[in-house]
């Protein structure tokens, strides 16, 4: 199927060219959006718009396109909320896009990348960290991790899902995000268990 091929190409482009800009995008959204709780939603919506646009036609320059999309999204939302004013528009940091030095972030040196990962790893809860270590450092399969730790494969799977989200959060550019995210995750878990 040619359609699927194209999809795979868009996926690869998205992962390799767009996602490495996440720390910058997150900071950009944080600077320009008052409600911190909505940053995750805005980021995801931005990604979806960028992805859909790329499916039609691949943008030539990724970074300006990503930020333009984020900007348009915020304007749309403000319009819908009917609270937009010239003042709040003027507050926006639109023009600073190019001031950020993205090249260094887009091509993080391997060493720095490892440090970022290590820091994210260290912030994981103890049990989750051990599972991620056995899986990613020692290269054990989920089943082997379960046998080694004497726990159910389902538990390993849940912890892998949790670890993935916490790592993503830690690397998305928000300071102190992991602890917050761990609390949020546990709260979510609890509320779902109750239901």
């Amino acid at each position: 199927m040619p359609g699927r091929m194209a999809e795979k190409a868009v996926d690869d482009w998205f992962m390799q060219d767009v996602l490495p800009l996440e720390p910058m995008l997150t900071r950009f959204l944080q600077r320009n959006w008052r409600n911190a709780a909505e940053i995750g939603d805005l980021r995801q919506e931005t990604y979806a718009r960028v992805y859909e646009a790329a499916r039609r036609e691949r943008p030539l320059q990724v970074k300006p396109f990503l930020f333009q999309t984020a900007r348009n999204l915020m304007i749309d939302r403000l319009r819908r909320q009917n609270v937009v004013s010239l003042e709040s528009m003027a507050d926006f940091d639109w023009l600073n896009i190019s001031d950020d030095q993205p090249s260094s972030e887009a091509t993080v040196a391997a060493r720095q990348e490892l440090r970022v990962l290590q820091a994210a790893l260290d912030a994981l809860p103890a049990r989750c960290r051990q599972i991620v270590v056995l899986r990613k450092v020692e290269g054990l399969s989920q089943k082997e991790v379960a046998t080694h730790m004497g726990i159910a494969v389902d538990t390993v799977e849940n912890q892998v899902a949790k670890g993935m989200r916490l790592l993503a959060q830690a690397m998305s550019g928000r300071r102190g995000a992991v602890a917050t995210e761990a609390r949020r995750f546990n709260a979510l878990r609890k509320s779902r268990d109750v239901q």
Partner: protein
Amino acid sequence: MSSDRIESTAAEWLAREDRGLSPQEALALAQWLEESTLHRVGYLRLKAVWQRADRLSALKAPPGRAGRFPRGILRPAVWMAVAASLLLTMAGGTWLLLRRPAQVFATSVGKTEAVRLADGSRMELNTDTKVRADVTAARRIVTLDSGEVYFDVVHDDTRPFTVYAGNRRITDLGTKFAVYRAGDDVRVTVHEGRVRVDMLGRPALDTPVVAEAGHMVVTKGGETLLLNKPAEDIARDLSWRQGLLVFNQQTLAEVADQFNRYNSRKIQVEGSARKIRIGGSFRADNIDVFVLLLNRGFGLTVKDQGETILVSR
């Protein structure tokens, strides 16, 4: 669906993918991804992170540099492995033994146990210890859940012997060493050869410590202390292997703590008696003789209350 909800569903799918999807699951995942671009980008974002995490494999313990046996000569470990595999083949299909997954070894209070692993390495478990050993043709990973283990490792340059204890990793560089873990506090005593102690996280703090014979490494949280100990102190710390507790001018309170690790009946020392200095060598399981000596030697009052033995001036 909120981004939070999408993200957690995406994470569940990726964790399942990481474990291996059945054909039905693969189909269901494809459908979920088709439903919305929001699903797809949420999924791709976590997938990218999980792939990036593969870089953590760079932290895998590098091969040791023990070099006790020159290259070109078959090391004893290899001979042992060859002999073991021959034996196993003769035993008929028990090759599986070498591929056996993690084994759990445990001792209760007051008990010790010696274990030989598939690679020829030995573990001696001290009192109240739980340890998991994953020794296969491909790897040697041991996790210390609690207690203390003395390791006598058959060194293998191609297959590092790695012990995980709390947030520390101890890697054998050709050696005999003991690891004690109480919660997240870890103590490593090196008897012979060398070990490397590191943390996997905290890039700023993770300069590995290489400890040699006569060294003791004590850790708490992110801090690591390397102590140079006289041979007699190391011998004393390892005296449990002979079932002995050896003391050199330690306070009675510390001595009681040691006895209490080995016995279900606990010694409780009260008042100024806690500061009395004790030396000597005692059988770890012979608590009655010890308190009798306290009574005769220091004139202390000993009240046996069954589970607890009260000692005071």
